[in-house]
């Protein structure tokens, strides 16, 4: 990584010597980003392909109903109306796709802001995972709290809560940075309004969803909610999921859990609404003393 940065710095320095560095004021070129013939030869200053507006530019030269096409594009973040070159994607859509994958690759190893954790009063514990590479290759270790974490929790947390909330970066620190500050207060208020006894929330480094079994056991909690960064979608590096389970203990699996996914402002479930919804699911879980497949069975499929 540092090699790449060094190369980039060297290239920028070289460009600077040649008087070709990007205009620091970001001034657009006269022809709206198009090529511009000048005395020094071709210069380019291309506008961002990845803005919400640029994404909504149709690639269809002659749609049967242009107005209807604009309407269709409003309904989804899927890549519609992109047009084609023979059977293949047009150049612009291909490059946007590659840019969206690129930003995801660059973002995947990000860190959660300490300010976000402090703002919500979260302390941090870890799992048995040693580093980022091991986190990707050994999900089993990410499902286990370290011995130190268990000791810290025992010392700092309220025991036997009705609802224990934990947060984890998972595969996207940006998901926590962008969504947790919005979702958490709504969720907490929603639970307090229902008169529920809350545990002491905390943050878990390099955790997987299954870590809630260890959390549930360590604190003897009735319901554990984990707010965790999802693996990034194309161009959406910040989606968060909420998983929760009734009395999560060793051996419980996803079949025992409920899930709300794709919590993000970028075309997913709004984090404020998500907070209210999760509070409601927690209440339902406590009322029926069940979650996952069992809860669906009790509710007659609903």
């Amino acid at each position, binding site marked *: 990584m540092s090699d790449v940065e060094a190369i980039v710095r060297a290239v920028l320095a070289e460009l600077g010597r040649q008087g070709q560095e990007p205009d620091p004021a970001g001034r657009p070129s006269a022809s709206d980003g198009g090529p511009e013939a000048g005395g020094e030869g071709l210069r380019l200053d291309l506008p961002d392909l990845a803005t919400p507006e640029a994404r909504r530019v149709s690639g*269809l030269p002659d*749609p*049967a*109903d*242009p107005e*209807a*096409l604009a*309407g*269709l*594009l409003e*309904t*989804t*973040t*899927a*890549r*519609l*109306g*992109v*047009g*084609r070159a*023979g*059977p*293949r*994607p047009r150049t612009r*859509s291909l490059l946007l*796709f*590659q840019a*969206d*994958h690129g930003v*995801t*690759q660059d973002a*995947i190893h990000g860190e959660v802001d300490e300010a976000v954790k402090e703002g919500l009063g979260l302390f941090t514990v870890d799992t048995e995972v040693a580093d980022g590479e091991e986190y*990707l*290759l*050994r*999900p*089993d270790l990410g499902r286990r709290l370290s011995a130190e974490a268990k000791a810290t929790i025992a010392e700092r947390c309220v025991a036997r809560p009705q609802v224990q909330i934990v947060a984890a970066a998972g595969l996207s620190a940006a998901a926590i940075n962008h969504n947790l500050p919005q979702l958490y207060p709504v969720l907490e208020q929603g639970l307090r309004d229902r008169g529920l006894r809350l545990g002491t929330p905390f943050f878990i480094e390099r955790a997987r969803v*299954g870590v809630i079994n260890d959390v549930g056991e360590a604190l003897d909690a009735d319901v554990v909610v984990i707010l965790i960064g*999802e*693996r*990034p*979608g*194309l161009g*959406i590096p910040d*989606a968060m999921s909420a998983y929760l389970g009734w009395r999560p203990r060793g051996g419980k*699996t*996803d*079949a025992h859990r409920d899930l709300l*996914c*794709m919590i993000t402002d970028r*075309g*997913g*479930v709004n984090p404020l609404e998500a907070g209210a919804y999760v509070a409601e699911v927690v209440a339902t879980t406590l009322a029926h003393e069940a979650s*996952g*497949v069992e809860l*669906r*069975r009790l509710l*007659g*499929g*609903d």
Partner: protein
Amino acid sequence: MRYRATLHGQAFTFGSVREVLAKASEAKSGDAMLGIAADSALERIAARYVLSELPLRELRANPVIAYEDDEVTRVIEDSLNEAIFAEIASWTVGELREHILSHDSTGEEVLRLSRGLTSEMIAGVAKLMSNMDLVYGAQQLRVTATAQTTLGRPGTMSFRLQPNHPTDNVEGILATVMEGLSYGSGDAIIGINPAEDSVARTAELMERTDAFMRHWRIPTQSCVLSHIGTQMEAVERGAPVGVLFQSIAGTEETNTSFGVDAALLREAADLIARKGVAPGPNLLYFETGQGSEMASDSDHGVDEMTLEARTYGFARPFAPFMVNNVSGFIGPETLYDGKQIIRACLEDHFMGKLHGLPMGMAPCYTNHTNADQNDQETATMLLAMAGACYYMGIPMGDDVMLSYQDTGLHDDATLRELLGLRPTPEFEAWLEQLGVLRDGRLGPNAGDPTIFLRYEPEELLDLSRPRAQATVEARR
């Protein structure tokens, strides 16, 4: 020591069939995580050497999980054809490989023999195959299945239109359906993964999709991929759908974690045969993938490829309409990079076809894996050569709900053009009338979803023809 082989002067020993199978696999991060992979490159080949000399009866006698301990083993064992097994029980796995690849055996003959093969035997023979072996061996295996229309006919290549939306917005889902149809995708099925697993949402998606299909006389079938129990409840309440979906796996314990077992699948098959809108006889859709067992800690120390084969063995007696695998979906802990994903795709397609299943493929990857769309396209082209029945069709390959990348709508059209393959015949005739397809290539209206909004069906379709779904409507 039970089995021993010597290579380059080094002796290697193996204690069980399960160990031989695990160590004979190509390198996979999942098997390494479990500590069951070969310790060296030469040990891997020694395991294959032993495997090649094992008689098929030895594999049958030693399922990787015991009969009394596991429902998947019982389903595989109890559905085996004893007469056919008796014909080949003394063959070695190496001989089976050569028989499959030989010019002396036809695809029909191989599919007949497959009724005498357990999933461990099928995994074993696939482990002895190189990538080109897997493509060549699978290409001759033609499997068809019928719900409303028929998949897998020679000369056809079909696609599941996958119009997912992050919040299940029905207008957004239908917009994507229109986009997909305008690229000729959707003849395998229109299959929606809902973000919310509820009966109300599932029923709504079934109803709106069915209404759109009826309005436009689309000759295909539909499915909503919530939990099968949720779908069954929606169907019980009268929601119109042709095919029921469920994810399955290669151990009883994993299936339990999915909330499913053989009895539930039998109940589902019975329900959809009585209340579904498609005549069948193949009305179930299964999804599978290498590594799902270890992801839920229920792998019993068996390698991910053998467990995938067992998943197909579990599926076989249910005569599904579609089976596809999403082996790149879980992430780098099961398949580390593009090379491992491509290999797994070729293995899975071959193993599924050799089980006699209508195998489709979802060569895919997630953004935390060391793979990109070039790997995805490479896998898709190889699988097309191998003869997969169908692929996914997603706008630009980007699933905005499930957050992974798969086959794109443009790729669907390109593959058909590259290989001279066509949609199902009734779907092709429908696309021709819409101007989406002209003589097998994309036509003047291709890529334009607004034709479904600008025109009424009678302006584009020849409605004097018999309606594709007339029989179903009469029944309702």
